[in-house]
């Protein structure tokens, strides 16, 4: 299903003043495409996820799924949240079954389908474990299985691996790609990690800081599995970091006041300097 965000504006009232979060944002995620939203914290990336998930409405503009405006949340668009947001009172199986229970799937089919997706994320040994007994990476696996078991046509991931260590993140990124290639859902993946975005996506939307605006779109044609040392990828990462460098400076200026002075050259010169590539 194609996702289209058209000229969307969104602001929130907080502390007695209005904060513009999204300003005239337009983006498209084609059927079966893997798109990353990349931007500094506070650029409204999560807000876009909430809008597409139907958890929130835009102040102006449109959010369309398969050409139709969104009426509200729908299990055809599922979300993996940064903190997993598992139901702590349910076991792994209970969590994965949850969506099927809501759609009144018959108990036997529900169980067998849940087990299938638990196997897919390699958690068969932890079917009856509770979330508090699992590591951060395992919780995200459960969250992924819980979202995938509904066989959504659109999968939204809101910084799903941001809180994980580098090795776990790399493993889960690869597994996500494998799963995507199997079922080919339309994926919108939010991250603030440049390497993650360029390693995963067909296209990367680069966002500016508050208010969030699309600054740049990069298409990445490199075949998967991708290697960080691929020169084409590195050139792309450098371009994005240049754009984001300005953005991040701007965020600091706004937060610290106009008097702060930044040195002119902030171009990452070598891959070493861009290690991690967190903004």
């Amino acid at each position, binding site marked *: 299903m194609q996702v289209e965000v058209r000229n969307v504006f969104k602001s929130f009232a907080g502390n007695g003043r209005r904060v513009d979060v999204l300003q005239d944002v337009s983006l498209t995620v084609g059927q079966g495409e893997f798109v990353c939203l990349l931007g500094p914290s506070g650029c409204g990336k999560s807000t876009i996820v*909430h809008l597409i998930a139907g958890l929130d409405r835009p102040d102006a503009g449109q959010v369309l799924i398969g050409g139709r405006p969104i009426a509200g949340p729908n299990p055809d668009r599922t*979300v993996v*949240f940064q903190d997993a947001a598992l*139901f*702590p*009172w349910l076991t792994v199986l209970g969590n994965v079954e*949850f969506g099927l229970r*809501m*759609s009144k799937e018959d108990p036997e089919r529900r169980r067998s389908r849940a087990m299938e997706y638990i196997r897919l994320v390699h958690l068969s040994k932890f079917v009856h474990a509770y979330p*508090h007994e699992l590591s951060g990476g395992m919780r995200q696996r459960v969250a992924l299985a819980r979202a995938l078991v509904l066989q959504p046509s659109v999968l939204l991931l809101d910084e799903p691996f941001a809180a994980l260590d580098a090795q776990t993140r790399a493993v889960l990124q690869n597994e996500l790609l494998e799963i995507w290639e199997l079922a080919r859902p339309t994926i919108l993946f939010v991250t603030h990690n440049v390497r993650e975005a360029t390693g995963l996506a067909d296209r990367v939307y680069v966002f500016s800081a508050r208010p969030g605006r699309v600054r740049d779109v990069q298409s990445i044609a490199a075949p998967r599995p991708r290697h960080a040392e691929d020169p084409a990828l590195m050139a792309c990462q450098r371009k994005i970091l240049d754009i984001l460098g300005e953005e991040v400076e701007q965020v600091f200026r706004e937060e610290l006041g106009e008097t702060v002075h930044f040195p002119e050259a902030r171009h990452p010169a070598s891959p070493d300097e861009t290690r991690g590539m967190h903004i």
Partner: protein
Amino acid sequence: MSPVARSIVRKLAALAVLAALWEATARLFPAWPGPFVVGRVLMENLGDAAFRQALGGSLRRMIIGYLFVVAIGVSAGMLLGRFRLLDELMGSVAVAIHAIPGAAWVPLSVLWFGLTEQAVVFTILLGATGVVMVSTDSGIKDVPPQIVRAARTLGASGTAFFWHVVIPAATPKILDGLRLAWAFGWRALMAGELIISVSGLGELLNVAARGQQVDQLLAIMLLIAGIGMAVDGFVFKRLDRLVRVRWGLAS
């Protein structure tokens, strides 16, 4: 020694120290009975059929009253949490009921039910329902927003959302309320029985006081404290720990 065994040993040691201090004061003031005397009186009491009947009466009233408290408190709290309008209209009533100590309900209970068993149960009901209503209501309102979002995106809505998400998410708070309600109810029971003469521990306290039997008075009070603590320790503390660990509220 395992941590559990160590904790038990420590608690027993603390009890022994307390008993020793008590015994010491009893030796200094002869009119004041020590732990051995009171313990013996308590044992004699428990061997007495009339006493056991009074104890049974108190427990029966407490259990009946508490069942009403749970049923009415939780369902009223759910209604308040579920329907905003109802909460705006009635929410402060729940808080007001919660603010009135159980003992203050005794006169009204007597007025309505006379010096009867029902009056005692009614006292427990009013003394303990408020806290359950308030905690259920606030538990329902404090469901973490991320949990709400996750549930909505997975297709939960309406009644299923309420029963499968809101209520389990509110369980730790509801349990807090039930635990407090047990303590409040136990107090309200005693207040009720002291004034309303029905066969029970409260009445036995009155009888002991009139006869100036300090040892008997202390024996009954010891029993009251013991039952209150035992239920809290064996039922509520365990439930609370289980829920806190599972809900990720404790490490």
